[in-house]
């Protein structure tokens, strides 16, 4: 089924884990130290690493950081003692998939490994689907909530109580839920401690760790009647408990919220090389479209309503999707100024004008892309081939120099000689400032 590495300085723990996971078809190896684990990970591709938090030498936390830096697709599960729950929660912020407090039962270990594999499978499926169909598989993270990432959420209500529930990533990796065991009203819960047990359709039990500490003052009894509420509305009607918090200020410091959460998520996505799916709004330039509209030929950008006729008609796009007129204009309208101006693709327009002829809005995309190229060139991003052509014109007045040899050939054919005024274009370039632009190194130092 999968390759699992157990890392613990106690041999007995390693053997126990091997005996629990081996019969389920997992190929289980063990390492008695963090260094041994890293050596093994370098040689073999593991799906899951289960590591003790406290070890001599390289600690579990250090091992987690090293694995996440170099082997992004390996999921790490921490084994923790009770006293280190805080550290375990922090480990999840660093990218640990989950933690299992000692002592744990075989079923608990199996359940968390299976959930990790299932989540990875869903992500891989989503990535393939995205590449095939460009349909995005969405995870929702309402922004007013605090998160134990990919595990549980907490919402501070106006009355100071805290509502808590299951994160939809956790929910998707568990799948269909058949039973939910909630705490009772009056029970105490602690951050990082157990607050809900879930049984999936394969009868595996999964533990949800509480995002906050406090006294349970209400449970969502609707879930006992209809467990599908968690699947359908994990952040709404699928809430689980309401708590009178006992240590809210400190608890919230261990959770992720707002921009920190987005950065955490983006960092993970970037590590998993999915950064092209994301756009940082603060990096956009809303004035870019107006800048283009001010350029000769660029005014048509204002009329585009993204129907895609240009892309459908483009002979270059038919060969290479890198040049996609509709996508370029959308990027420009969104304000992705640097991405557009510094791209290679803006230079691939063959100026066939097919898009311009067919555009129902009269955008004149060929001229719009020319406007964009002019802006790019001013900022030092000229395609080297076009720079070379401009330099030839500046130097010899024509793309192909006509020398005496060429004129003799022409004479032989009965064609008139041609004398080019080599200075005319150079003078023009000096007047317009193009000569100075050509002499500047471009932004890549060419």
């Amino acid at each position, binding site marked *: 089924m999968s390759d699992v590495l157990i890392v613990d300085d106690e041999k007995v723990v390693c053997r126990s884990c091997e005996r629990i996971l081996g019969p389920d078809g997992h190929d289980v190896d063990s390492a008695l130290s963090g260094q041994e684990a890293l050596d093994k990970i370098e040689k073999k591709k593991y799906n899951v690493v289960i590591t003790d938090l406290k070890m001599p030498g390289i600690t579990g936390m250090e091992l987690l950081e090293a694995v996440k830096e170099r082997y992004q697709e390996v999921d790490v599960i921490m084994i923790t003692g009770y006293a280190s729950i805080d550290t375990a929660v922090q480990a999840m912020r660093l990218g640990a998939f989950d933690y299992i407090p000692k002592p744990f039962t075989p079923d608990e270990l199996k359940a968390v490994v299976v959930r990790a594999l299932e989540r990875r499978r869903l992500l891989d499926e989503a990535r393939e689907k995205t590449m095939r169909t460009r349909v995005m598989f969405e995870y929702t993270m309402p922004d007013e909530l605090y998160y134990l990432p990919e595990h549980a959420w907490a919402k501070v209500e106006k009355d100071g109580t805290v509502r808590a529930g299951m994160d939809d990533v956790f929910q998707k990796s568990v799948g269909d839920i058949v039973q939910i065991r909630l705490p009772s009203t009056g029970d105490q819960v602690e951050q990082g401690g157990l607050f809900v047990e879930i049984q999936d359709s394969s009868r595996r039990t999964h533990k949800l760790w509480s995002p906050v500490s406090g006294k349970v003052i209400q449970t969502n009894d609707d879930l006992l009647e209809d467990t599908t509420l968690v699947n359908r509305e994990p952040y709404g009607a699928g809430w689980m408990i309401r708590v009178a918090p006992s240590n809210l200020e400190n608890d919230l410091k261990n959770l992720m919220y707002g921009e920190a959460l987005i950065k955490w998520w983006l960092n993970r996505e970037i590590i998993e090389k999915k950064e092209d799916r994301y756009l940082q709004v603060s990096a956009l330039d809303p004035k870019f479209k107006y800048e283009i509209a001010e350029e000769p030929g660029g005014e048509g950008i204002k009329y585009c309503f993204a129907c895609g006729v240009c892309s459908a008609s483009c*002979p270059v796009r038919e060969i290479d999707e890198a040049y996609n007129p509709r996508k370029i204009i959308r990027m420009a309208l969104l304000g992705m100024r640097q991405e557009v101006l510094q791209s290679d693709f803006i230079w691939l327009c063959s*100026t066939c004008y097919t898009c311009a*002829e067919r555009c129902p809005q009269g955008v004149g995309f*060929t001229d719009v892309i020319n406007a964009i190229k002019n802006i790019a060139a001013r900022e030092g991003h000229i395609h080297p081939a076009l720079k070379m052509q*401009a330099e030839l014109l500046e130097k010899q007045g*024509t793309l192909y120099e006509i020398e005496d040899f060429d004129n003799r050939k022409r004479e032989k054919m009965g064609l008139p000689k041609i004398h080019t005024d080599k200075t*005319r274009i150079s003078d023009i370039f000096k*007047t317009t400032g*193009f000569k100075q*632009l050509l002499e500047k190194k471009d932004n890549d130092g060419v």
Partner: protein
Amino acid sequence: MMEYSLFLGCTVPVRARNYEISTRRVAEALGIKLVDLDGFVCCGFPIKSVHYDSFLLTAATNLIVAEEKDMDICALCSACTSVLTEVNSLLGRDYELRARVLKDLGIRRKYRFGNSVRIKHFARILYEDVGIDQIRRRIKNDLSQLRITAHYGCHYLKPSGIYDNFDDPEHPRSLDELIEATGATPVDYENKNLCCGASILALDERISLDMANKKLMSANEAEIDAMTLVCPFCSVMYDDNQRSIESRFGKSYDLPILYYPQLLGLGLGIDEKDLGLNMNRVRVNPLLEKLGGRLSHSTRS
């Protein structure tokens, strides 16, 4: 007699002398006077995408040369025709822009641009000014055995707004009618409107050659004797690069590529050597053999 200043641009005098010589001979035969003027420079097309101001001034320089002599311009390259027509029209109607351009060029005299000088592609001169009937009447040789496709390219017809819609860019007919006027049979084919890809040859050879290959494939499937075209850029793709394309894509086309004046010249009875046929990269002998002649082919000079 019709009279035009002949604008050769950068490519024709060096890479398409066969186009130039066949044009001159055909023009002579049909009573079109083509005058060579001093002072023409590059049309500006290569710099339009990187420095618009320089492009404007460069194109305007050529228009001034023609207006000085009170002559319309006949261009052989479609890209040259397109940009000169565009700038001519723009400067003709935008008084402020015109004044700025003249000032930047250091010229005090007022020029009228679009209001006096016209620019026409040679093929369009044949189509509109000479006329199909006149051409038909002057044909001496029987080309009826030849099946010829037309490659219109892009800038000969587009952007259509600057060309006063003399032909339909989606369903063009002018070159087909010109082919028919010679007695040859014009043949339709898939991808007839496809761009040759020349504009991006230096920027991305892979995409450019792929585009050209698509066209050659479609034309070849139409079982033709030759493809005819009206732009030296297009000829660079289909004639000069045909062997590279065959090698890259594992194809064998051996498709002669003729400039239209070469085809017309054959029909008018102009000697093959005066049409520069020996300079075409892909041998035209199979086509000539069909007509009962054979050219002793020398390597292109």
